[in-house]
């Protein structure tokens, strides 16, 4: 992005919602602030973006002061000159050999103080920390192509500091390798601008830094599922022509790129990503080939396998139904541009990526793209359980294809746990921000907004975990709001689509009414394009007229009248 473009984007008309972000650095933020604002505008279209900067030359103070102001996030940029001014180009304090020990000691001490300040700020707002991006000045006696022990010492102090900072909750560290790919080290420093304006970056470097910082701080919700083709994608060769032993994925067979892809898929599956196959092939051949022992992905990690001779988009449709997720959460990978186009035409929301079979650099780019699409902060128990629960859902559907009968539900041995201890609010936060179908109003929250919801007078927030004779689903629902008098006000209610058809939503409301002795529950409801299942549930109790407003009133008596028999054993940790 050029500076002119950034200024244009940053200056576009805005809506009412304001987002405040700290940009914390010791230099003049100048164009970096402009680029940051522009990328934030692109990330949150229509919202007003306020980038708060601090005082020149006072990174520590800026971080401390930022902790006093609420914001949705912060970017803390540390350059060597922030750790000791003598490591910058605006200092004339001398590069004598006898000062090097003193510089190292100063850097160590400054790192310790920064660690404390960053941890304090991260308790108030999510932070992305960026380690020095500019090279050290040529201040030792060695030729510049040789690393000095002084530089090694500084780097050791820095790495130690960054490791400690990274362990802190709410702090992400920008990956320097990713930065290097978009901003080569040789094209980062603008000495003229540094000396004239106190802004040390070239425009290209400031642009790259801002884009990555926004991606890191406000990461897009990860995709949930990947559908892959087989021939010339998962493996090299055409199964129907070469046979089960004829397809390959190895160095020996000059098909290592397919092994890399398989490794990536296995790794994604381990992190809870759903994997499925859509292939125009003979189903029996496919089944046999997936049993090959040298396959780098376990057959159990793939569900469903849809091999047929019909249109790829039909196979994709069946897979989406089995997964019960929207197409916008899915990536489809195929080597054929025609197949990608056919799927894309029917499901424009699916992200279609081509597998570039004969392009090693392209494969690497694809693998990086997959990590970007599916990368996540933490891997939870629910991620491990996701695939298993989908298989179970398919089994349940096969046993009880229409609405589950009371008899069937009574034999599930279902156990529901309501937990308000808040030990894992991050799972609740994640669930609320990614659930579409059973979602009361489609609201998405920043971490700061989430915290403010929890701090309201009378606030409650419970997670709901489920298990039955088919196995656990983990934490699959979140209910939140506040209590005022004999009424409960609910503005947060989501449930994972994996948990449908088990009457968990009924039990959740029953527990809510019982827990607070509420005469009515009021819902802050908003219909969305995706929350049909939630609307269907509410219509069971409320007339179309009653559903018309934003705040829906459900009296306890109305709920009791229409609530079906429930068979869950309830574990009550709702305090």
């Amino acid at each position, binding site marked *: 992005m050029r*500076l002119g473009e950034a200024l244009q984007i940053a200056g576009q008309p805005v809506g009412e919602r304001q987002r405040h972000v700290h940009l914390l650095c010791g230099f003049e933020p100048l164009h970096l602030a402009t680029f940051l604002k522009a990328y934030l505008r692109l990330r949150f279209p229509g919202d007003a973006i306020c980038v708060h900067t601090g005082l020149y030359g006072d990174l520590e103070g800026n971080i401390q002061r930022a902790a006093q102001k609420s914001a949705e996030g912060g970017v803390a940029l540390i350059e060597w000159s922030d750790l000791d001014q003598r490591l910058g180009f605006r200092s004339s304090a001398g590069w004598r050999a006898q000062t090097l020990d003193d510089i190292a000691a100063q850097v160590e001490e400054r790192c310790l103080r920064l660690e404390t300040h960053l941890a304090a700020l991260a308790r108030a707002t999510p932070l992305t920390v960026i380690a020095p991006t500019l090279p050290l000045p040529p201040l030792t006696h060695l030729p510049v192509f040789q690393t000095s022990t002084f530089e090694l010492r500084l780097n050791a102090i820095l790495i130690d500091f960054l490791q400690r900072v990274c362990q802190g909750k709410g702090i992400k560290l920008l990956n320097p390798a990713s930065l290097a790919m978009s901003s080569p080290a040789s094209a980062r420093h603008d000495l003229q601008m540094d000396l004239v304006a106190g802004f040390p970056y070239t425009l290209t470097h400031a642009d790259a830094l801002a884009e990555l910082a926004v991606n890191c701080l406000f990461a897009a919700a990860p995709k949930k599922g990947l559908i892959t083709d087989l021939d010339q994608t998962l493996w090299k060769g055409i199964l129907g022509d070469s046979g089960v032993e004829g397809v390959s994925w190895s160095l020996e067979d000059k098909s290592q790129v397919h092994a890399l892809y398989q490794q990536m898929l296995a790794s994604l599956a381990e992190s809870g990503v759903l994997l499925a196959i859509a292939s125009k092939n003979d189903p029996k051949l496919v089944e046999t080939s997936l049993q090959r022992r040298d396959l780098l992905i376990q057959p159990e990690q793939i569900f469903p396998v849809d091999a047929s001779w019909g249109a790829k988009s039909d196979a994709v449709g069946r897979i989406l139904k089995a997964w019960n997720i929207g197409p916008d959460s899915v990536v489809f990978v195929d080597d054929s541009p025609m197949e990608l186009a056919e799927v894309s035409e029917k499901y424009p929301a699916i992200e279609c990526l081509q597998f570039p079979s004969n392009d090693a650099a392209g494969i690497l780019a694809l693998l990086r793209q997959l990590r970007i699409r599916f990368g996540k902060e933490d891997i939870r128990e629910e991620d491990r359980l996701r695939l298993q629960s989908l298989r179970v859902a398919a089994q349940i559907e096969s046993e009880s294809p229409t609405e589950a009968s009371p008899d069937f539900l009574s034999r599930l041995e279902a156990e529901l746990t309501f937990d308000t201890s808040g030990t894992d609010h991050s799972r609740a936060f994640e669930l609320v921000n990614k659930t579409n179908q059973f979602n009361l109003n489609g609201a998405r929250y920043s971490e700061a907004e989430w915290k403010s919801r929890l701090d309201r007078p009378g606030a409650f927030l419970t997670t709901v975990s489920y298990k039955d004779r088919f196995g656990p689903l983990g934490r699959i629902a979140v209910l939140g709001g506040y209590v005022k008098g004999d009424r409960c006000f609910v503005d947060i209610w989501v449930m994972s689509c994996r948990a449908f058809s088990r009457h968990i939503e009924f039990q959740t409301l029953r527990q809510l009414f019982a827990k607070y002795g509420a005469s009515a529950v009021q819902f802050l409801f908003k219909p969305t394009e995706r929350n049909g299942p939630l609307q269907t549930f509410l219509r069971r109790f409320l007339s179309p007229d009653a559903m018309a407003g934003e705040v829906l009133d459900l009296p306890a008596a109305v709920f009791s009248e229409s609530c079906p028999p429930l068979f869950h054993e309830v574990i009550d940790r709702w305090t």
Partner: protein
Amino acid sequence: MDLIRDKLARCFALAFPQMDPSQYATASAANTSEWDSMAQVTLLTLIGEEFGIDVNFEEFEGATSFDSLASRINGISPGA
């Protein structure tokens, strides 16, 4: 020179979004409160982008009006 002034006007529109375009021709750091040293740096950077030139800040020393900027640009890149 007209091309230079047109391009320079685009830079002004970005650097001083609140300024009425009719005021560009007479604008200077002396009569424009938002034209401070940082705005000058931004303006020169935009000039570098718009005209495809490496801006040497020393060459633009004292160029703090629309006319003087246009004149310096013409000196570096005649007709732009």
